[in-house]
């Protein structure tokens, strides 16, 4: 077992960190307050080849591995959960499935602009009445000649309002449950009947648009079917195995950012004649923050390394996502506490990490669903 990153991975992490500290950290709170998707930041991420890290070079990606992608995602999370979330959704959910399940023509047309950062990606699984139980899906796709006609409503879709393509899950065989779901590539600009009906105001992550979308007789050519009819759920499971690693990485970044803020503050803030980090109560808290962050990172990297070895990672990615998301929320909460009154103000980052971290326990499978997945994997 080798716990050291390669020189290449380390260099990429350090370089991304420098960019994040210089270009993103100074505006992280501002874009939250403005509820503004920072398109200019994503343009720069594209120029630095960050938008397609684990996508093959043939389609404009970097050709890096999942570990490299996890490192980049963690660094984004360390400064901005919202930018990190839009980034992870773009790569893991909106781009990666096209690479895994698309035809060469589909990759050429749809994946290349995503991997190079010209366009943002989204995917649409959740519906108003269908969350953890995705088999209870109402969005339907009916074949009509050489076209499909999509109707339904999708809920909590990250990036939908800024996306160049959305991977929409819809029922092609009603009554077949998981085996009746298929995936379609929808173009929000060109396809009539696609409408973003709501951009939600949220507890956090407000620079990352979370949308409700309505599909009203959206007609798309049959070449927009991703993979085969009925494969939608299998694709989803495979996509989430990778996606959960990125949410774990993002959560690790949130925890790291919160831990660093608390560590620095506790070393500078003096009360009763000494830095508060010298008091057992605060020292132990900061040490625990470090412990949880490091644990989250190790589980994340283990899942990523196994993914890169081509092994199944359902257990590892669920475990990493479950642990890291809880670590992020706990570490961020403690960071607010360490900073006291200042931690509760928007002038300091811990409150933002705290707000952002909560979603990590909900999106891409709630913590309860991760327990369900893990229980099954353990044969319980």
């Amino acid at each position, binding site marked *: 077992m080798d716990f050291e990153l390669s*020189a*290449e991975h*380390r*260099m*990429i992490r350090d*370089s*991304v960190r*420098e*960019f994040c500290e210089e270009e993103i950290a100074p505006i992280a709170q501002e874009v939250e307050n403005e509820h503004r998707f920072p398109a200019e930041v994503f343009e720069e991420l594209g*120029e*630095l*080849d*960050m938008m397609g*890290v684990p996508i093959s070079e043939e389609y404009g990606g*970097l*050709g*890096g591995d999942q570990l490299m992608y996890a490192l*980049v995602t963690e660094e984004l999370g360390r400064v901005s959960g919202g930018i990190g979330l839009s980034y992870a959704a773009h790569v893991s959910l909106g781009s990666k499935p096209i690479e895994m399940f698309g035809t060469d023509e589909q990759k050429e047309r749809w994946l290349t602009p995503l991997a190079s950062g010209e366009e943002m990606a989204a995917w649409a699984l959740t519906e108003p009445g269908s969350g953890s139980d995705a088999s209870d899906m109402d969005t339907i796709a009916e074949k009509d000649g050489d076209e499909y006609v999509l109707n339904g409503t999708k809920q909590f879709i990250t990036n939908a309002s800024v996306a160049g393509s959305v991977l929409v899950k819809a029922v092609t065989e009603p009554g077949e449950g998981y085996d009746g779901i298929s995936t379609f590539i929808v173009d929000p600009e060109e396809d009539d009947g696609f409408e973003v009906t709501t951009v939600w105001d949220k507890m956090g992550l407000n620079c990352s648009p979370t949308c409700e979308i309505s599909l009203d007789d959206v007609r798309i050519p049959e070449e927009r079917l991703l993979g085969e009819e009925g494969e939608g759920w299998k694709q989803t499971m495979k996509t989430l195995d990778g996606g959960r690693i990125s949410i774990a990485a993002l959560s690790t970044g949130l925890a790291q950012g919160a831990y660093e803020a608390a560590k620095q503050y506790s070393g500078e803030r003096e009360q009763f004649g000494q830095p508060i980090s010298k008091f057992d109560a605060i020292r132990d808290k900061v040490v625990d923050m470090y412990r949880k962050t490091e644990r989250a990172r190790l589980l994340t990297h283990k899942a990523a390394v196994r993914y890169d070895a081509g092994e199944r990672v359902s257990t590892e990615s669920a475990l990493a996502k479950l642990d890291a998301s809880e670590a992020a929320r706990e570490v961020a909460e403690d960071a607010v506490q360490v900073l006291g009154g200042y931690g509760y103000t928007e002038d300091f980052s811990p409150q933002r990490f705290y707000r952002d971290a909560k979603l990590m326990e909900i999106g891409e499978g709630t913590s309860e669903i991760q327990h369900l997945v893990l229980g099954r994997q353990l044969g319980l």
Partner: protein
Amino acid sequence: MMKILVTVKEVAEVEDDFEIDGLGIDEAYLEYDLNEWDDYAVEEAVQIAEAGDDVEVVSVTIGPERSEETIRMALAKGADRAIRVWDDAFESVDLLDVAAKTRLLAAVVEKEDPDLVLTGVQAADDGFGATGVSVADEVGFEWAAVVNELDLDADGGVANVRRELEGGVEELTEVDLPAVLTIQTGINEPRYASLRGIRQAQRKEIAPMSLDDLGFDASALDSPIALTGMSEPESESDATLFEGDAEETAAQLAEVLREKGVGAQ
């Protein structure tokens, strides 16, 4: 075909709170990074290469194996290949002085035969601020120090430069090639290395060069300068806080300024 040689250095950066250990700073408080001035020199060279047809950018450093990561950053930003000068003999040297660096870098210049050598004005750690000009003198190149604007006329063999002098004075001058220019921060906006650049840099050549390769033995590192002590300078700060409304505080400020002689005839 034009060749630009850029000298780069890995410098130690010290944390705000640190401890001195003998003649140096305790390693626990040090982080290593590419010297800031050199980052601008690399950027300048790469921009020339991008604007020109056939320009090769070669980066050279004197440093231990650890410094490969630093010089690889120059490769990631667009340098074509690199040279790293090192030898076991360096391990026992406390202070590599300007004369020793000049000997080594001049030997590399003679081997590579570049049209232009770009160095940083100074290094952020030992800060001699002399190596670039000293190398120019040794190899007989023209030179200009503290360059903050460069317009290269490669066909005419002339570098039009703007130099930053003391007291805000600037000088515009022409320097015939081959030349050494020491590059000031602010001359350009150094890019972030792209991730593809970093990946490609892993496969670019960093050629090792020993003292022997450059035609020297260990005596090339000898220096009349010895490091005899390291201490933190005493620092004093004197802050006065004026309290009251604008009129009162302005009066207090005016009084202090008068006392200090500001505005006196």
